Each structure stands twice: as structure tokens, then as C-alpha cells.
């Protein structure tokens, strides 16, 4: 009978298999629990408490009054970098899929092995008003141009975006190129027979067939940019808007205001989580 079947206790072999499965998953679950879930709830709770431990919303009202522009700035910088990054990645990966060049591939994968801090420092030295780039230009053009009149790229949003894009390019290239290489040559040859050039092969064949990989790459890149600290710390503009991680660092180290720092942390979690949910909702189902 149906009822007796559902009520029947698990047989010994099924429960053993279940235990074995649970044991295998346990370390991973524990790591997620200890490193992500616990700190998240800890931050969440602390962000609603004041110094004496009473429940309050003042941390949020404080950071919203202080840092709304920084929040928008952070999201804006991350989205702008992401768009530029995706365009570059797709074009590069598409080119490399069709015209194999291990030299170009190597060149663009170098940033994978350069730490964030170093990228930040390199960019600030390279792009500063009297930095390597401008000094070289002055030298090559025989003092024809004056670096003091050039816009300062290094210490502006443009410098920040340039550094973030360059650093993340290697990793997203790795992900997207892998997916592009998985595409059967037959599709590409067929489209070539209909006269498609490199760009159309990328747009019409490669991108639609690698939606998932591109989605994963964008969510990973976006969250990594939202949470990036080293590059803004090396390049940051302490006068204008800052990224949220700089505010978080400042609240902890200089103001000892852990409530506000936790509130900023929760906001960044939510923004990153938004990206992940968007990914689950749309990309992974496509």
C-alpha cells in the first residue's frame, strides 16, 4: 500500500549511503558555514547594535547619511568596469578562438599572477601626471607637451576602472576562452560559409552558446570588484567619492566604529548577493 511504503523506515543501505554522502559534504558545508554564513549573521546582528549592545538602526542611518554617494559610486565603478571588461574579454577570447596565438594569450594572462596591490601601485606610478607614461611622452615629443596640463588619470575614476579591468581581464579571459574553445568547430565553419567575419561569429555563435560561462564570469568579476580594497587604497581619491571598502577600513581602523563597519559590510554583501541572485534567476536557467 502507498501509505505503508512512505512510512517504511529507511533501509540500512540507504541510510548508510545518506550518511556517507553527508560525511563527504560535511567539510565543504562546514567551511561555508564557518567562513561565510557565521560571519555574515554576525555582521548582520552587529550592524543592528550600538556600542552598548542595544538594538538600533542608527548604524544604517549613519552610513546612509554619510556614504550614499560612495555606495552609488562603488556600484557605478564596478558596473562600468564590468561592461568594459566583458566587451574586451569577449572580443579577445573570440579572436583567440579563431586565430590561435599563444603569445597574445600569455600577454593577457600575466595579470593573473600580479597581486592587486602591485597592480594598484603600478597603475599609480605609470599613469600619474608625472608618471612613466607622461614622462615618456614628454621625452619622445621633445617637451612638446606639458604633463601639468594633462588630466590626471591615475588618481581619478578612470584610473580605478583601468586598474580593475586590467587586473580582472586575465581571469575572465580564462573562463570565457574555455567556453569558446568548447564550441564545436562545425558551427563556426557553417557561419563562415554564410559569410560571417570574426565579429559576427563572436556575436551570433560564440556569445549565445557561452551565455552560462559569461554569466559566471560577470558575477565573479562584479563581486570581486565590489569587494576590492587594495587597488582603491593605492589609487583612491580621498577628496571625492570612495569605494565602500575604503569607508569600511576607515571606520574600523580610524574611528573604531564597528557598528557602522558592519552595516557597510552587510550592504556590500547584499549588493553582491543581488548579483548572485540575478545570475541564478536568469543566466543559469537559460
Amino acid at each position: 500500500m502507498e501509505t505503508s511504503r512512505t512510512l517504511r523506515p529507511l533501509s540500512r543501505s540507504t541510510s548508510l549511503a545518506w550518511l556517507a554522502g553527508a560525511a563527504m559534504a560535511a567539510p565543504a558545508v562546514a567551511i561555508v558555514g564557518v567562513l561565510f554564513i557565521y560571519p555574515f549573521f554576525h555582521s548582520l546582528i552587529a550592524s543592528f547594535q550600538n556600542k552598548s549592545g542595544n538594538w538600533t538602526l542608527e548604524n544604517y542611518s549613519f552610513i546612509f547619511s554619510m556614504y550614499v554617494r560612495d555606495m552609488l559610486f562603488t556600484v557605478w565603478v564596478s558596473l562600468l568596469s564590468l561592461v568594459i571588461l566583458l566587451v574586451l574579454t569577449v572580443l579577445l577570447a573570440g579572436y583567440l578562438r579563431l586565430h590561435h596565438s599563444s603569445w597574445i594569450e600569455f600577454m593577457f594572462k600575466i595579470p593573473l599572477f600580479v597581486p592587486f596591490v602591485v597592480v594598484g601601485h603600478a597603475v599609480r606610478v605609470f599613469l600619474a601626471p608625472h608618471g612613466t607614461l607622461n614622462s615618456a611622452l614628454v621625452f619622445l615629443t621633445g617637451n612638446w607637451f606639458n604633463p601639468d596640463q594633462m588630466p590626471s588619470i591615475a588618481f581619478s575614476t578612470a584610473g580605478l576602472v583601468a586598474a580593475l579591468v586590467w587586473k580582472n581581464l586575465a581571469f575572465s579571459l580564462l573562463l570565457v576562452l574555455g567556453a569558446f574553445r568548447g564550441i564545436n568547430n562545425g558551427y563556426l565553419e557553417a557561419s563562415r560559409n554564410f559569410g560571417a567575419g570574426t565579429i559576427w561569429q563572436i556575436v551570433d555563435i560564440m556569445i549565445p552558446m557561452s551565455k552560462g560561462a559569461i554569466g559566471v564570469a560577470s558575477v565573479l568579476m562584479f563581486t570581486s570588484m565590489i569587494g576590492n580594497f587594495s587597488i582603491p587604497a593605492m589609487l583612491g581619491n580621498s577628496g571625492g567619492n570612495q569605494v565602500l571598502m575604503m569607508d569600511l577600513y576607515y571606520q574600523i581602523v580610524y574611528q573604531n566604529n564597528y557598528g557602522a563597519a558592519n552595516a557597510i559590510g552587510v550592504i556590500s554583501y547584499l549588493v553582491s548577493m543581488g548579483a548572485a541572485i540575478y545570475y541564478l534567476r536568469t543566466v543559469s536557467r537559460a
Partner: protein
Amino acid sequence: MKKIAGISMVLMLVLALAAGCGSKTENTSSSAQNTNQPAPTAADAAQTKQPEKAAEPVALNVATAGDTNMAELQEKNVAPDFIKNHAGTTVNVIGTGPGDAGSQKIYEKLKAQKDAGKTEWDIDVAVVHQSAMKQMVEDGLLEKWVPMSANKDLVTSSDSKNSLGANVEGYVIPMFHSQVAIAYNPDKVKEVPASFDELVKWINSNPKRFGYNGIKNGMSGVAFTTAYTYWKTGDYKQLTEGPFTKDLEQKWPAVMKELKALPVTYTNGNNGTLDMLNRGEIDMGPVWVDMFYLWKDQGRMNPNMRLKVIEPGLPGQPMYVVIPKNAKNKDAAIQYADFLTSPETQAKVIVEHNSWYPGIDANAVLPKVSEEGKNKLFKDVTAEDLSKRGLSFPLSDFLKDLKTSYEQN
């Protein structure tokens, strides 16, 4: 998160200390050389009860806040000379990290040992920032060791008595005094501003050529903002000595708006200001005097650059030598602290090697400094500048609100 960071820090400290305590070397009594100590303390009493204890080698634990250079200073420049005259003593140096957070770690460690009811604390000597002093004194974590010090007559500066409004007299001897000054490029700045009035005029007629790091990226920018506020409000006395009252802060939004309306370049840190000055991207900016000279010594800074402390003055800050109340090796700790604050060490290590201003009476230190060292340190910022225009930072509550006010306006 704070708790976890605190616990892991404590664990690291304990490990570091345990690693250092394990060494057993040939012993020499340290308390034997220290018969002139007045005021028998708990530790002394313990030692008289157990005379065999004096025969054990002493492993002194010196904790210092500050960047890696602070730990290196103790390890490389002070401890080796100290050990030479104190055979059998070993010195373990523990760096607790840069900024006020580093001092906070020392406070938390001592507080935890006190709360746990320990009678022997494992930090013997600590070097801390001003910000930690109020808590440390109020929580009874420190020994009033200055009266027992050989250098007690040389402790004359005002910051040896008052630390951001906290009365620290007797508990501290400043290890050094560090000063913020306006660095400038004499090739570009022909008429050097002598006051904030003139500086503001200069900034307005030379847009973007003055650089500072706001308040988020280092203390030289905070010092500049603070000095600007002192100048505009004229409230220096109450801001630095108290009492704390929110009324004074009502003037600040207007001051901050004015300051932030100036056409300046924002740099990305103490280093950033020096960097941009050196590359010629700015012509002037507030810097720490010691960092400025360090960069010059290392050949990273154009040697022509000069310094000036303008009217009505700029803040500086000391770092303090303190001894925890229940330090395990208190006699040796006092000897070490005495060595650190002696005119000889101050001259050799603090002034000549690190370009700091001495923590004790400069009159006792300067005769021991080489002509070269004196010329370097006192060429641009004279002793008179320091006594007249070397200001303090405001009380910690004021400073915190001042930074928030800067952000909000």
C-alpha cells in the same frame, strides 16, 4: 568580528611570547643591579620570597604598536645594545600593527590578563600611541614608573603629562615626538607662506599645487585638517585640554566647507603626498617630518625640498614608553625603559637614526647628537618652532567628531 580579531591577535601574541620564553641561557641576576628601586611592588615582594627566581635568565617582552619599522627599531637598534650591558637578558620584540589599532591590541591584551586575574602579565615594556592612554590609565593597567626612572628629571614636555586630555603624569615617558610640517619645493615656491593666512592665499593663487591626503589615508592629512580648524576657530585650548562639549562643534561645518572648497590635490596617503611632491605634481603639502627625512636619507626625495611649521602651528604626536602594572620582569623592564629613554639612546637612535624629535628634554639630548644630525633635524624646523608651534591633537572625542564632520560637509 572584533571579538574574533581580538582573540586571534591574543592567540598570536601568546604564541609569539611562548616562543620567546622558551630559551634558557646562562643566567645573570638583573635585580642585583637594581638595588636603587624605591617603592616595593608586588613583583618585588614575590622576588624576595623566592630568591632563587633572580638566578633565572630574564626574557623581556617588549610590545610595540606601529608599523614594522617600530619593531625593527627595538630589535635592531635598541635591544642589541641593551643586551650588551645586561648579560643573560633576552629581548623578545612583538609588533602589534600600525596606527591606533596597534595600541588597541596592547590594551586589549593587558585588559584580558587583568580581567582573568593573572598576577604576572607577559608584556614587560610597551610602546603605545596617545589614543590608548586614557583607557589604560583608567583601567589601572599601568605602573607609575616614571618616579622610579633614572631619567625622571628629564621628563619635561607637556605631552608627558597630558595625552589627549587624559592625565598620564608619572605613567609615561615619550619615546619620541613626531611633528607634521609643510613640505615645499623651493624651486617653485618662492615666497614661502609663514601662516595659514598666507597658505590659503597661496593655494588659491596656485590651484591644485597644494596636496594633502584628506582624512582617510593617514595622519598628516588629519593633522592639517585639525590645524586648519584650530586656526579658524581659535579653540585650541579647549579642544586639547577639555572639557569635551558638543557646543564647540557647531562652528565646524562652516570650517570644513571652507577647507574643502580650496583648490587642492588629494593625495592617497602620507606616502602619496611625498610621492607627488617628489615627482613635481604638487609644490607643497603637509608631511611627517621623520618620513620626509627618511625618504631623503634613502634617496627617494629630491634633496632640495624644505620644511616649515607655519603659524599658528601644526600638530604632532609622541609615542609613549609604558610599563604594565603586573609586568612579570618589572625590574628588567624599568632598566630597558630607562635605556630607551636615556639621553644616549635618544641621541643615537631617536634623533640621528630616525629623525624624530627627542621624547625627553632636548637640552639633555642635543649635546650628544652629532653636528650633522642636528643640522639635518633642526635646519628647517627649529627648536623654537617646536616649542611654539608644535601643537597637540584634540581630545579623542573631539578628534573623532572632527573627522566625521569633515566627511559630512
